[in-house]
């Protein structure tokens, strides 16, 4: 994995390699180098399979982290490529799609568009509804979306539901005189 990192580092401005397991590592790359890096990995290094594309909302830094997890089946190892993109407080973030390299990415991109509000212009059917229907609020996986508040405002609830601290409750049940 280190040797691969060295080889790629001579070509692209890569960040540090995080080795989570001997067969799983992560690198960070600036957004403009993502496409050449992915092409290099898929065409030259044998990382032919896109395992997943997902996002993390770093709301404090005003950034989204996109993780492209690639697999090299022959060498039985995975490499995650991380990209940080700016996160607008309102409205959509934008990123270039990779659906022309791996057509399966189009599905992930639709999901990210809907759940995180990250747009991939030109990706197939990216503007159509994916999982949610008739969604009215901000994208629900953004961390500033308050799911509890949304649920309380939108769905009727049945009174009578109460929560107890298990430790205190059992103490009270077992030792009612407080000893």
């Amino acid at each position, binding site marked *: 994995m280190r040797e691969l990192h060295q080889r790629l580092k001579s070509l692209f401005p890569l960040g540090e390699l995080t080795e989570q397991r001997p067969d799983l590592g992560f690198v960070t790359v600036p957004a403009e180098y993502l496409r050449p890096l992915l092409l290099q990995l898929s065409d030259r290094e044998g990382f032919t399979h896109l395992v997943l594309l997902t996002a993390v909302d770093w709301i404090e830094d005003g950034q989204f982290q996109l993780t492209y997890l690639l697999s090299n089946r022959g060498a039985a190892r995975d490499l995650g490529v991380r990209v940080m993109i700016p996160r607008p407080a309102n409205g959509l973030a934008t990123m270039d799609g990779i659906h022309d390299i791996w057509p399966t990415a189009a599905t992930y991109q639709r999901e990210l568009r809907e759940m995180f509000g990250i747009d991939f212009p030109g990706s197939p059917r990216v503007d159509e509804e994916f*999982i949610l*229907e*008739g969604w009215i609020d901000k994208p629900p996986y953004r961390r500033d979306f308050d799911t509890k508040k949304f*649920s309380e405002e939108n769905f*009727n*609830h049945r009174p009578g539901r109460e929560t107890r601290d298990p430790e205190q409750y059992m103490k009270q049940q077992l030792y009612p005189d407080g000893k």
Partner: protein
Amino acid sequence: MKPELMKRMVKGPDGQEFEVEPLRDYYCEAAPTVMPAAYIKIVEDFFNWARSESIWILGFGTGCGAIEMRPLMTPRFDAYRYGVQWRPTPRQSNLFIISGYLSVKTLKRAIRSYEQMQSPKYVIGLGSCTINGGMYWDSYNTIKRLDDYLPVDLYIAGCMPRPEALLAGFMDMKKIIRAGNAEGANKYAENFDWYKANQKQVIHDWDMPDYNW
């Protein structure tokens, strides 16, 4: 609204052009009506006994609770010996089991399926999620009270209830039907506006007719 539901001009196979408005032309617009008992009590009792002995369940798994219905169909628990069986379409079934959490998207399908079922029809809410939201009580996408949207005859609590609990639930359901108290379809017809208002409150892209009969 989806393009296939819009009013449009269609060219028939004979070359004639005509206008189609799917929401009016493909569905019956009339709201459901209350069907009072038609016969004297002893005959109605006989009917209710017959109904209770042929519970046909719509094979529509809405949440994780649907997994509990598979062992019920198979020899281990074998619900068929009680006159309970699963049917593939709403038209053939009279019991709708909402099996677990119900997302807003599935609620839309559940309403359509329920309305397409023939009266007398019954609804069982399976699992805590249908009662008060269960573990999805703060989810952005699941309803928390099933009886606001569909007339529920019986709840089976648990997360998940075991197949034995479902069998006990079927027995209770039979008692309710035999006593003539399973009037869900009539309740739905009576409070139709209230149910529709509740449904439209959570389904924001209402793109179907008000009654999908």
